[in-house]
């Protein structure tokens, strides 16, 4: 099928402002948006810049706005999106070039919630035992691939560069609800600051945007309730 890709382009060396450029290409309905972008880059305009690595929805490199919603380019099929496809970089991040955004502030917030197991006891001779039920509690938030689609879909994240954002909260959830972890207080201390979890306005864009189907809003609300009820 013939599709039109309208891509928001920005070259920091030449452009003052981002601008749209359209490309007509031939694509199969079963092609992914990533294939369509590759077609443009390989055969039409080699200057087009975007991130991708695994091409299988695992690495989280290619989150972008596809027809107005944050999606992974490697998970969306051209046939599902339609003949007219608008592709823009995610909101809430500084654009480095074309579809590539600066993820560093995002990772800094991620690191601030200490995304690793904290346990002050000496490791036992065998394992730190955890029952299947206890593992189940935080199962969904283990699936995060740090693509940034949730944070980039969040209005408070767009307007407040200090807001920690849904992705960092999801990863805090993964450890706060882990029965083996003892670092909850440290993480809650970060999340209860004014730019923490209560900046969330339950807009639900994050839940829709997550390519891993993590119920992001639900995880955020669970953390809010820990703070509201366990003090």
């Amino acid at each position, binding site marked *: 099928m013939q599709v039109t890709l309208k891509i928001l382009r920005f070259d920091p060396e030449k452009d003052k402002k981002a601008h749209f450029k359209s490309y007509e290409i031939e694509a199969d309905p079963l092609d992914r948006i990533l294939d369509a972008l590759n077609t443009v880059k390989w055969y039409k305009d080699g200057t087009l810049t975007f991130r991708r690595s695994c091409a299988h929805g695992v690495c989280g490199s290619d989150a972008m*706005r596809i027809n107005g*919603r944050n999606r992974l380019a490697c998970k969306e099929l051209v046939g599902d999106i339609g003949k007219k496809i608008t592709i823009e970089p995610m909101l809430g991040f500084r654009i480095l070039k074309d579809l590539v955004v600066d993820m560093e502030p995002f990772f800094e917030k991620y690191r601030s919630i200490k995304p690793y197991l904290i346990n002050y006891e000496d490791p036992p001779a065998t394992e730190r035992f955890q029952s299947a039920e206890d593992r189940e509690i935080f199962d969904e938030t283990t699936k995060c691939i740090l693509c940034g689609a949730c944070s980039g879909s969040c209005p408070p994240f767009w307007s407040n560069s200090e807001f920690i954002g849904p992705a960092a909260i999801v990863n805090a959830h993964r450890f706060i609800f882990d029965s083996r972890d003892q670092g909850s207080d440290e993480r809650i201390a970060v999340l209860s600051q004014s730019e923490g979890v209560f900046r969330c306005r339950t*807009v639900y*864009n994050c839940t829709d945007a997550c390519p891993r189907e993590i119920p992001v809003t639900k995880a955020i*609300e669970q953390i*809010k309730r820990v703070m509201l009820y366990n003090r």
Partner: protein
Amino acid sequence: MYRGQSGMWLWVFHRLTGVGILAFLFLHVADTYLVGLGPEYYNELVFLYKLWVFRLAEWLLVGAVLYHAINGIRVVLMDFWESGVERHTQLVFGTLGLFLLLWLPAGIFMLKDVKWFA
């Protein structure tokens, strides 16, 4: 532009109605303050509130207050009530339903004897 979820539009209207109510509050403080200068000034001005434009605006104001209150309760429920997130869709429809149920009849009462475009 971001093609957001229902929650995003509810949130946008929550903001707009909040700012709208605040703006009215300032207006209201200003007009009530006129009494301080003397009743004649106040009486001079309140005729404004009988104009159809103002009557309509009053109805919109009632809408803003109702919406802001009901949606506010939805947001509070979301935070405090464990099943709030699972019931998101029902809460959205409940909010809009209750809002219309109160606002439309209020319109009939408030606007029935307005002389339009007079």
